[in-house]
Each structure stands twice: as structure tokens, then as C-alpha cells.
């Protein structure tokens, strides 16, 4: 395992936690672009985790309260593909889970300024994530 202070390598995978409503389970592209929508307080970018800093991608679910954990799916996104999309990845240490990072360009301000552009980027992220789902949500909503 890597320490989170180590630089992020192009050969790493990032982990995105995806709420159950944003899965289209009957589809080849099972993850909706809405899974990459910034929250109103995500001014510095949306949250992901470095797989290399965890024993298992599922360890990232520790950041979610127990009662809601089963409503999350987990997908991997190769760093190389995110960089190819022109997205910057910034380390952003948190206490609960090591390896927390932000997709800095995809933040709430940038999204509000150019929703049409970012929706296309989110679609591409959804395609990447759909190829690499490591856990589907256990409960529907």
C-alpha cells in the first residue's frame, strides 16, 4: 500500500462512491453521469479515494455512516483516463479514510457556470466508471 503523502501515479485507480439512485442496472453503461455531480458545498471538487492507499476499494465506504453504506456502489477510475480528460487530481487529506483526493476542476462553481460542458465530462466519467464497478449497491431507493 502507498502512503497518501506519496505522489499520485498514472498507473493508479481512484475510487468513486456512487449512490444507488445513480445506477442503471439494466444498462451497459450502468452508472449515470449524475454520480459525478458536485454537491453545493464541493467548492474544491468532487471526492474520490486512491485505491493504492487502501487494502480494498470497499474500505473507502468507511467514510459513509453504517446505515447508508449498503446504498452505495463502488467504481474505479484509472488516473490515466482522468488525466487524459484534462482533469486535475488534488490530494485532500481527511481523518476517516486515507488517500482522499479531489477532482479539482469538477467543482460546484465550475459546474454552475457551464453545465452543458460538464455534463459531457460527467458522461465520460460514467462510461469509465461503468467498466470498473467493483460493488453494486445492495439496496435500491
Amino acid at each position, binding site marked *: 500500500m502507498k502512503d497518501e503523502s506519496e505522489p499520485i501515479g498514472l498507473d493508479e485507480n481512484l475510487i468513486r462512491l456512487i449512490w444507488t439512485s445513480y445506477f442503471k442496472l439494466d444498462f451497459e453503461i450502468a452508472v449515470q453521469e449524475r454520480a459525478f455531480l458536485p454537491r453545493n458545498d464541493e467548492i474544491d471538487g468532487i471526492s474520490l479515494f486512491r485505491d493504492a492507499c487502501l487494502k480494498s476499494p470497499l474500505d473507502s465506504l468507511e467514510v459513509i455512516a453504517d446505515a*447508508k453504506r449498503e446504498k452505495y456502489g463502488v467504481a474505479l477510475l484509472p488516473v490515466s483516463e482522468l488525466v487524459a480528460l484534462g482533469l486535475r487530481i488534488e490530494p485532500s487529506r481527511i481523518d476517516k479514510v486515507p488517500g482522499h483526493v479531489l477532482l479539482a476542476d469538477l467543482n460546484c462553481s465550475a459546474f454552475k457556470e457551464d453545465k452543458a460542458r460538464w455534463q459531457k465530462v460527467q458522461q465520460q466519467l460514467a462510461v469509465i466508471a461503468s467498466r470498473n464497478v467493483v460493488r453494486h449497491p445492495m439496496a435500491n431507493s
Partner: protein
Amino acid sequence: MMWNLNEHDLLARLPRSLGNPSATNGTSNGTPVVARASVVTSWDESFQKLQEYGGCEDDWDGQGASAPTHELTESAWQLIKILRAKGITAPAWTVPGVGGTVAFEWLLEEGRSLEIEVTGPYSADVFLDFPDRPSQLLEIKNEVEAVS
């Protein structure tokens, strides 16, 4: 306030219910639009989900998502009542947004899709998505009813 659905010719862009003999398909630039039947759900399901989201509280996803306000949910309810009454096909998905919004999405032919995201009371963003060109974003702003 009320919905101003004449703006951007929205109703003509949405798919009509094929089960309604009095309804005809909508058109987009002269091209008929038809929902992909495999993903059409029922309006009842859409209303049910909206009711569920209306009962959400902030942090409904455990990561700080905002809950939709009562006013937003009520206006979304009015919107889908109008769409159903106009013979529009039920959306394929009715989903909450982490910013306190509610979205309805239709899948159209040739890989196109249309999404109405209710962003505030009687206000919405409409995304027209095409597989081979940039998305188009249209804004619907609320219309104040005239006082007689």
C-alpha cells in the same frame, strides 16, 4: 407562479405516449421523437419517487446532499401532472440531485436523451444530449400568474 412550458417548445421535444390514441409523437426539428420502449416507466412510479424525495432531509445520502425544498418538490409535482395530462411518455428515470434538485430523464431514439432538472420552484434546466455533438442547455424560468 406557474410553469412556462411554451418556452423553448419543450412539449414538442418530449416523447408522446404511444398508448394514447389521441396523441401523436412530438417532433424535434421535424424529426419525430419516440421514447425507447424498454426503459419507459410509469407516471405512477415517477410520482411515487417524487413523493419519496419530498420526504428526504438534508444529508440524505450520508455525504451532505441537500434535500429538495417543499416548494421545489411541489412545482416538480405540478410539472409532471402537466406532462402526463399532455400525453407525454413517463420518464425513464426520476432521480434526486445532490444539490437539492429533482431530475426526470427520457431516452430518445438515436442515442439522444432529454433531461429536465427542476432547480427551483417552477424553474428548470433542460439538457438535450446528442451522441455526436455538444449538449444543449435550455433554461425554463417561472412565470408569474397574472392577478385579475
